[in-house]
C-alpha cells in the first residue's frame, strides 16, 4: 500500500502549482483553472484520508466538492464570457472600474 504521506505530498504539489498559477496569471480562465487545481488537491486529501481511515464521509465530501467546483466553474465562465463580449478580453487586472 502506498503510504499516506505520498498522497499528501502529491496534494501539496498540486496545491502549490494551483496557488502559483492563481497568483501569477492575469487571464481569467487560467486563474479559474488554477482554482480548480487547488480544489482538486483538497479532494485528493479527502479521498486519501477516507481510504486510510476506512470512513466513507471523506469521499462524500469530495463529491460535494466536485459538484461545487462544477457550479463555480459554470458561474465563473459565464461571467468571463460576458466580460469578453463587452471588453474583448478577460484580463482581470484591467477590470478596475469599481476600484476606489
Amino acid at each position, binding site marked *: 500500500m502506498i503510504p499516506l504521506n505520498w498522497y499528501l505530498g502529491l496534494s501539496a504539489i498540486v496545491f502549490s502549482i494551483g496557488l502559483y498559477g492563481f497568483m*501569477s496569471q492575469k487571464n481569467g480562465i487560467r486563474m479559474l483553472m488554477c482554482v480548480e487545481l487547488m480544489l482538486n488537491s483538497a479532494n485528493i486529501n479527502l479521498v486519501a484520508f477516507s481510504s486510510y481511515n476506512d470512513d466513507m464521509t471523506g469521499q462524500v465530501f469530495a463529491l460535494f466538492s466536485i459538484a461545487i467546483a462544477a457550479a463555480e466553474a459554470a458561474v465563473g465562465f459565464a461571467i468571463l464570457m460576458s466580460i469578453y463580449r463587452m471588453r474583448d478580453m478577460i484580463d482581470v487586472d484591467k477590470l478596475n472600474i469599481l476600484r*476606489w
Partner: protein
Amino acid sequence: MAMENLAFLIPLLPALAFVLTFFLGKKLPSGGAIIPIVAIAISCVISLAITVGLLQNPEHFVTQSVHWFAILNLGILIDPLAAVMLSMVSFVSLLIHIYAVGYMSHDPAKPRYFAETALFTAAMLGLILSDNILQLFICWELVGLSSYLLIGFWFHKPGAASAAKKAFLTTRVGDVMFLAGIVLLFSDIFTVFNGNLPEGVYVLQFNEMFKLIPDLVAINSTILGMEVSHLTLVTLLFFGGAVGKSGQFPLHVWLPDAMEGPTTVSALIHAATMVTAGVYLVARTFPMFIAAPDSLMVVAYLGAFTALFAATMGIVMNDLKRVLAYSTVSQLGYMVLGLGLGAVIGAEAVGVSMFHLINHAFFKALLFLCAGSVIHAVGTHDMRLLGGVGKVMPITFATMTAAALALAGFGIPGTSLGFSGFLSKDPIIEGAYLFAESTGNWLPYLFAISAAFLTSLYIFRLIFMTFTGKPRTDYGGHESPSSMTVPLAILAILAVVFGALTRTSFYHFIEDNFVHLDIEALAELGGYHLAHHGHEPLLVLWMPLIVAVAGLVIAYLIYNRRVVDMSSIVSRNNPVYKLLYNRYYQHQIFVEFFSIKIIYEGLALAGFYSDKMLDWLVNGTSTLLIEAGDSLRKFQTGVIQHYAAAVVAGVGLLVILIKLVMEVF
C-alpha cells in the same frame, strides 16, 4: 365718579385710533386725521375732568388694576403727578394733531402719519398712568418704537432712516439700564421676602415698592471696593433709562438728529411727550431716589452739566430746528437738575421740576410749531438763508417771540409776574443756590446760571436772524393757514400766562402726591439733610433776569445791529468755534470710534473670525476623517492576486503562530 371709571380709555382710545387709521385711513378724507383727533380729544377731556376732580379731592387717587399673568398686573394710578402729565400730554398732542392737518396736507402718506402719532400718544399716555414699573417700561419701549417710526417717517431719505436707527439705539442703551434696574429691584424684593412673594400683592406696583424702601436700602453690595446700597444702584439704573429717553449727557446724541422727521413730530417728541418720559420716571420713583444715598447728587450734577453743555452748542447751530433741539436738551437738563435738588428741598423738587416740564411743553411745542410754520412757508431750515420773515408772517413772529421770552425767562423776581418759563426756571436756579449753600457744591448753580445766559443768547440769535433784518435770499413765504395758526395762538397764550395763573396751586397739588409717604424719613435713609428757604441775597434773586437781559442785548447788538463783525469769530480757524460747531466731536467719538471701530470692527469682526475658526475646526474634523479614509482605502487595490497573497501570508503567519504556541505548551 363716572370719569374715573373711564380712565382706562385714556390710552385705549388713541390705541384704537392707531388701528383704525392705519387700516382705514386711506378711505377717509385728509388721511383719517379725524379719528385720532377725536380720540385724543376725548382722552384730553377725561384727563382734564380727572384732574379737576383731584384738585377738589387731592387724596382720592384713581386706581384700577387687573391681573395680567404670573405675578404681574396691568393697572392705572392717577395721582396729581400723573393727572397733570396726562392733561398736558393729551392737550399738547391734540393741538399738534390739529396743526398737522394743515402741515401734512401735501404728504401722500398721511394715514400712516396719523396712525403713528396716535400710537405715540397712546404709548405716552399709557406710560403716565401705569401703576407698576413693568407696565411703565412696556409703554416706555412703545414710545421708543413710535419715535423710531416717526423719525424715520420719510424712510426713503437715507438721513431719516439713519436718524431713526440712531434714536432707537441710543435710547435703547438707556432702556437696557432701566431693564437692568427692574431686574435688580425684583431680585432685591425677592430677597426681602426671602423667596416667598406674598399672595395677591403685585410687588412691582409703585405703592408696594415704596413700602419696601426701608428694606431695600439696607441691602448692600461691594462694588470696586465701595459699599453701595442696592437702592442706589437701582435708582441710578432707572436714571440711566431717563438719561437715554430725556436726552441727558452722554446719551443726548440722538435728539438733534431726530429733526429728520416732520416738524410736527419734532414738536411731539421734543416738547410734549417722549423726552419728558425720563423726567417723569424719576419724578414717579422720587421716593426711591430720595431714600437712596448719593443718587440725587448724581442727578443734580448731570442735569446741570447737560443744561450748560447743550446750550453751548445751541449758540453756533445754523439750522432752525437744531437750535431748538439743543435748547430742548438744555431745558431737560434744568428739569433733571430740579429733581436732583430734592437732596436739599425734598419733595418740593418734584413740583419744581414738573412745573418747568409743563411750561416747557407749552413754549417748546410753540417754538417747534412756529419753526414748522416758517419751514412750511419758506421751505428751508437754514437761518443763514432767511431774515425778515417777521414781515410776511406776523402771527408766527408774534407767537415765536412770546415763546422765546418764555424760554429765556423774563419776569420780575419775587412776584407772580412773568412768562411761564421764568416762573418755573427761576425756582430751579434758586434751588441750585440753596443746594450750593447747604451742601457746598457750587458747580450745579454755576452751570445753571451760565446756561440761562446762553439760553437767552441762542434763542434771540434765532429770532433776530430769522425774523428781523432784510431777506438774505428770495424765499417768498406766506402766512400759514388757520388750522396751523390757531394752535399757535392757543399755545402762545398758555406760554405767557399758564405759569402766572397756576403757580401756587400747582406746587400744592403736586405736593399732595406724596402725602401717603413720609418723605423726610426717607430722606434720612438716603442721608440727605433737607434745608429750608432762607433769605437769598437780592443779587441771587435778580441774577437769572440779569443774565437773560444780557443775552438779549448781546444777541440784538450782534445779529440785528451787527456792531461786532462775526466773521472773525465764526471761522474754522477759531478752535472754540470749531469745537462747538463740530458739537464736541461727539459724532466722531460715539459713532465713528465707539460704534464702528470698537463694537463693529473690533468685537463683531473678531467674533466673525472666531466663528470661522470654530467652523474650520468642525469642517477640519470631517476633512481629517475623509482624508484618513482616502489613504486607508488604497490598501484595496482591486488586484485579486494581492488579496490571494495576503491570504497566503495570513495562513503562513497563522501556521507559524500555532507552531510557536504548541512548542510553548
